């Protein structure tokens, strides 16, 4: 008898605690405003990413198609994954001296882990992190990028 009593009280206890849980669920059901689900990609226009968001390494160019990279390869050395490859060339300065300069900045997005170490290492702040996060492409070779634009050169006064 005692066993049946205990059994029945347990069943009622379970139903009661279940009801308590359902009440919480029901409370949200009738207050859809408190639900915080966002519908991606429908929210693309309203999506605000914080300015420090690390999505992709880019090299900003100004309106004269000039960047700040000296080709010092500090970023290449700082990168743990071999993501960056710097190819340098020698410019001839007006005084007729040879000067090392950036030829091509190759960036392998598919190898990048967005660790920010290259940005920290750059002495001239020539590269930064962009907020773009939708990186999928159909062809893998599209992920290998050249960051300095064609015909660009180093900004005056950056050593």
């Amino acid at each position: 008898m005692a066993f049946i009593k205990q059994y029945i009280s347990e069943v009622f206890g379970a139903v009661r605690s279940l009801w308590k849980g359902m009440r919480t669920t029901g409370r949200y059901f009738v207050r859809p405003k408190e639900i915080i689900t966002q519908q991606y990609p429908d929210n693309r226009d309203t999506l605000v990413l914080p300015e420090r968001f690390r999505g992709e390494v880019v090299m900003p160019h100004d309106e004269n198609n000039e960047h700040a990279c000296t080709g010092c390869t500090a970023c290449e050395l700082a990168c743990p994954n071999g993501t960056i490859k710097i190819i340098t060339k020698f410019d001839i300065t007006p005084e007729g001296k040879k000067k090392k300069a950036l030829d091509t900045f190759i960036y392998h997005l598919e190898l990048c882990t967005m660790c920010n170490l290259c940005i920290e290492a750059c002495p001239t702040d020539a590269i930064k992190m962009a907020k773009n996060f939708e990186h999928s492409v159909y062809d893998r070779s599209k992920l290998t990028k050249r960051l300095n634009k064609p015909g660009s050169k180093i900004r005056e006064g950056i050593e």
Partner: protein
Amino acid sequence: MYSETQILKEASAGDIDGGELVINVGPQHPATHGVLHLVITLQGETIKKIEPHLGYIHRSIEKMCESLSYRQFIYVTSRMDYLSAHINNHACALCVEKGLQVEVPPRAKVIRVLMDELTRIASHELWLGAMAMDLGAFTPFFYAFREREAINEIMEETCGARLTMNYMVPGGVMFDLHPNFQKKVKAFITQFKKKVVEFDDLVTNNIIFQNRMKGIGVLSKEDAISYGCTGPVARASGVHCDIRKIYPYEIYDQLEFDEITESAGDSFARYMVRVREMHQSAKIIEQLIDNIPEGDYQAKTKAVLKLPKGEFYSRVETARGELGVYIVSEGGTTPYRIKFRSPGFSNLSALDHIARGGKIGDLMATMGTLDLVIPDIDR
């Protein structure tokens, strides 16, 4: 040791008339939360033996670290226990700092502790949701993720990433706090305290849930010690093993918080330890959030770090237990050898012992409360 073909043969040959039956849980199984492979020997519904098979997500992180510099290797450790990425990075940074003998500025120390505790709450929240889902309650998962999302947003704003932050660097932290940080953390703590009772209604006080957890997977204090369990798993068995208390690092010795222990050692005790730990973490954050000292967030260090010849060890309390980082240096720019003592591995080793004799249906409760993160077990 079984070979894969043997396992398959035995699994298909297991007869149902009272003989032993070998089944495979994983490597792709929703309840293992990762590529863990358990070979389970059953007699009827009773578990006779569990043999975990590892290696499916082995990336040889320790070996990789040997070819990376002391600045570079830290980011890899975010990929071990990805739910405690900050705390893993912290352990590595502490170990390198020990070798370099740099003094971390007070501001950086406070930021690190704040981030660690936020990570701990986020990790426990995720575990809570996933755990409830393992037992068949789907809704709590979304409630847990709501709280976790608030933390992720705070992380995103200050560190620039949501999961693998790489925010701790030798000498301090990578960036200063975002101006919104204090405001957002305070809002989170208020929200967290208000909403955490919902979990009590939804999960903790639910009698069905309690019956499935109580007395399941009991780990005694002696066994917890002999298996090398740490973290909430050992504390649920009454072992005092909180590294923040027994070997305080950073500023934990000046903070006021309790080490949560339970005595039952069953799944419900492990559950309660984590739930109560979240409150302690919130308490730590509340103590610090208004008292962040001004000053540098990073000590000046050389561009190329070189550790002196010798051996260095540091340990921290991650959300899952004790993480130890052991570096052997030959005086160069890369470590000669790195060893990580990960909490998940030792905690998994106790699984066979505590699940033996139980029912297969209870395995989910036992395994869920061990809070296994497979990339942490299998580095």
